[in-house]
């Protein structure tokens, strides 16, 4: 009796461990996707591929990029899923990405993929700049909402604008590089010179300006639309403003890390990441996704986002990043005293 029980138990344990061995390929996936979305992404992926387990390593864009670069000679990640394309371009120039053309690549918007063949990365969704404007605080101060980037330099906004520091935030760099592209080198810097007079603080994180606006710490924050929509859903009195000149954008993208030991599983994940099902999954939070025609409007997202997105030259931005940041720091970082 006891013997057979032990035997049965043993067989059961064996069966468990072998299925575990067969079923699971574990992928270490580095990501900067919002924490609240991670579980949903993994669960949706596992509906189709229950045999691949995702181990997320999540942090902000800057930290994850720094981590990947620090691990350059000894990569820990198998796949990067949900990191800014600008960051992936930096990794590409270091030869850290494994080019791969996923099945279903043809359906994608050409803007949403690396232009080389096979591409080193493929896009997921766009992540667009926007201004979060606190209507309650604005009214208290007798201000009206801005409608354009140019409006932000109006003298009455002095001390009421917060934007992310491009040297520590991907969103900040996105803004600066889009202004330089839209207004030209000279015009862009002239614009930032006058904008600088109105800035109350440069934050380290790209979502913080919007959260500060949502909490009334500032009246308007230069941030991104996704964050604004979330804050509005949470009940904050913010409006999401898409400046009329056009908006800078970046995309969340996917890539295989060169040298991964789990190449098959990594390819499976990248294949899946550009399926219509995945796009619908991204669409829950993001209004613009990689395959045209799939996205449905997202609550609180302004409808005109796709037409306002500028023709972003990622290669130019990546190759000039060091020079732009140096110039920016020289001009504005020395502002050591915050304004009252």
């Amino acid at each position, binding site marked *: 009796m006891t013997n057979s029980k032990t035997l049965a138990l043993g067989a059961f344990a064996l069966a468990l461990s072998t299925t575990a061995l067969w079923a699971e390929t574990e992928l270490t996936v580095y990501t900067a996707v*919002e924490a609240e979305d991670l579980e949903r992404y993994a669960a949706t992926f596992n509906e189709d591929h229950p045999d691949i387990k995702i181990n997320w390593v999540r942090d902000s864009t800057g930290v994850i990029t720094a981590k990947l670069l*620090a691990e350059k*000679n000894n990569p820990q990640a198998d796949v990067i899923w949900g990191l800014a394309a600008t960051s992936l371009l930096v990794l590409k120039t270091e030869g850290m990405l494994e080019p791969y053309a996923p099945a279903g690549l043809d359906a994608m918007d050409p803007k949403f993929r690396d232009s*080389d063949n096979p591409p080193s990365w493929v896009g997921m969704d766009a992540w667009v700049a926007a201004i979060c404007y606190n209507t309650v605080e604005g009214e208290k101060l007798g201000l009206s909402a801005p409608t354009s980037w140019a409006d932000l330099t109006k003298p009455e906004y002095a001390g009421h604008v917060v934007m992310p520091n491009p040297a520590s935030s991907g969103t900040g760099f996105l803004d600066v590089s889009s202004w330089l592209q839209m207004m030209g080198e000279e015009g862009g810097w002239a614009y930032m010179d006058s904008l600088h007079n109105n800035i109350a603080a440069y934050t380290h994180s790209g979502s*913080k300006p919007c*959260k500060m606006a949502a909490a009334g710490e500032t009246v308007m924050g230069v941030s991104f639309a996704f964050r604004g929509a979330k804050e509005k859903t949470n009940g904050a009195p913010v409006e999401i403003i898409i400046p009329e000149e056009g908006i800078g954008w970046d995309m969340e993208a996917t890539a295989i890390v060169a040298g991964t030991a789990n190449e098959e599983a990594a390819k499976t994940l990248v294949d899946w990441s550009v399926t219509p099902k995945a796009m619908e999954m991204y669409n829950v939070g993001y209004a613009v996704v990689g395959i045209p025609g799939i996205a449905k409007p997202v609550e609180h997202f302004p409808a005109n986002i796709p037409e306002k997105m500028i023709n972003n030259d990622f290669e130019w931005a990546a*190759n000039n990043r060091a020079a732009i*940041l140096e110039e920016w*720091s020289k001009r504005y970082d020395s502002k050591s005293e*915050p304004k009252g």
Partner: protein
Amino acid sequence: MAEAPSLPAGRAIRLRIDSDGWIKRAFMGVIALYLMVALALPLYAMLSKSFVTYSFDLARYEFQVSDESGTVWGEPVSAAALNAQLGKFSDADLASSTDGRLSVTDFFPDFSFRSPVKYRIRGVADNAPYLVGLDLRNSTEWQEFDSNTFRRINLRPVASTGLQNYTEYFSNPVLFSSIENSLYIATISTVLTVIFAFGFAYAINRSCMPFKGAFRLIAMMPILVPSLLPGIALIYMFGNQGFLKGILFGQSIYGPLGIVIGSVFFTFPHALIIISTALSISDQRQYEAAESLRASKWRTFWTVTIPGARYGLISAAFVTFTLVITDFGLPKVIGGQYNVLAIDIYKQVIGQQNFEMGAVVSVVLLIPAIVAFVVDRQVQKKQVSLLSARSVPYEPKPNRRFDMAMLAWCAAMGVFIAGIIGVCQFAALINYWPYDLSFSLRNYDFNKMDGGGWGAYWNSLELAALTAVIGTAIIFTGAYMVEKIDGFKTGRAVFQFLAMLPMAIPGMVLGLAYIFFFNNPANPLNGIYGTMAILVVSTVTHFYTVGHLTALTALKQIDAEFEPVAASLRQPFWRLFARVTVPVCLPAILDISIYMFVNAMTTVSAVVFLYSTHTALASVAVLNMDDAGDIAPAAAMGMMIFYTNATARVLHAFASRSILRRTQAWRVR
């Protein structure tokens, strides 16, 4: 000069080392090795990183240009030769950073992307990286491009060693101004903290005011929370939506003002402990002498009290100064645009992935910390014992007016400290500040936020427990071996030096050094990178010194005769260690472990570079949630740390009491 008469040289007397002696040396060696690996080698790795520079090495590239037909090729010419011919770039222009780019078209003044001319490029050395578009190439074979592609080619810098990073750092006014800012903040905070803490310590030791016990408890509260928590409270009080904003008269809390107030808060208990110890040792007879000489109270204060406490004051000042200048959390949360050194390291490493410059700023940050440390050590050496066998402990006499004044001083400090903690608690419970003031537990739903969720909290508990157990074992054993070993002077001196060193190393510097050292595939210890183990190692090392000093103090109280007696009774040292030394030193051992626990819960600086997603920590989560703008959840997580540490403290107090009753009965007659 006459030759001095001398005795024939005898056989040199040598201490024979018995097997115990060898075992002790072995133990000491192991722990010294630990300190080498966990401290000295990473610092060395960081130092060498700061000398790694990047520049374009033009001699490594060769070009070939075709004629209009694209078939007849000219002579190969090196980029260096072209540059010499054109005089375009000086050596300074060729200095760069890891992310640098140099467009090849700069070498061809008559370049046009429309021309039918073709170009070839090759490396002539093994490592000659260049980009075609964003594609990295590194080849000694000729590669051919048409004009339109050729304009998209950029050279990449290659690594070499030199002082370039340092010259760049000191010629950059922005980075340089951070040194000034850091010194300014640290100096003001130090002066204020020492004054406040002195008043508080004076009240507790030299007055008969009521509620001393309660004030002592309140004063210790800041030790239980991460240094960035006061920043969050200050935003709620004095931020643009702050309920006390009016009393700042339009001054902004973001910047030096906020950093100084927060720094006073979190360094206050550290200064208080040191000054209070200094004030508690005093000789009643000196005051009686002063009184009989008809010295006024004021004069007595300046001629007796202050000189008696001066070493404590100096020590407190240096400890506070080091804490403030190396703190990273507070300026991050409330510093606004005010750049300080610790923030620069973070910006360079995290924002710009410029590890080399991060290492340079780390080296710069090391300097004031080491100076403060060395001066403090020198001062400590000069301290002579004020207490002799004939001293009479000072007994304060009741003096209503004086006691009330002291009570008011302490009450003010108490309100300040308890107020900040209280505001954080309030912030954590408010639904949506400032638009929805209803209470809710929404902010405790950490899984919905950045930073690692509730898992981070459990990780922190694990880290704190492991650090307390492992750290205490390592530290106490090390202290025992170094204290109770016979002879071996050099080895002991080296060990002492290694054990004191962590005090002078800012946490951020340690964390960055760990990346360079452990995240190197050639390092056999590479495997611990990204695990809980590296967090434990870094935390134990970061807080090693205070534990070591506590252990030494306790061990010195044990009579040195125990060892010879045990040896003559033929008892091995480990039996003495387990049966006598450890039980006698239990209070100190418990103190070390609670110190390690509390600090492991609150530390941010070293671990911010080392945590991975599976080992996210509560203290880092506070930072990251604040960074993402989730200030209320950050406050909530900070309060979780506070409750945990307070509970640990209470348990520690109970444990100490019951253990003391059992093991320390010999102390009372």
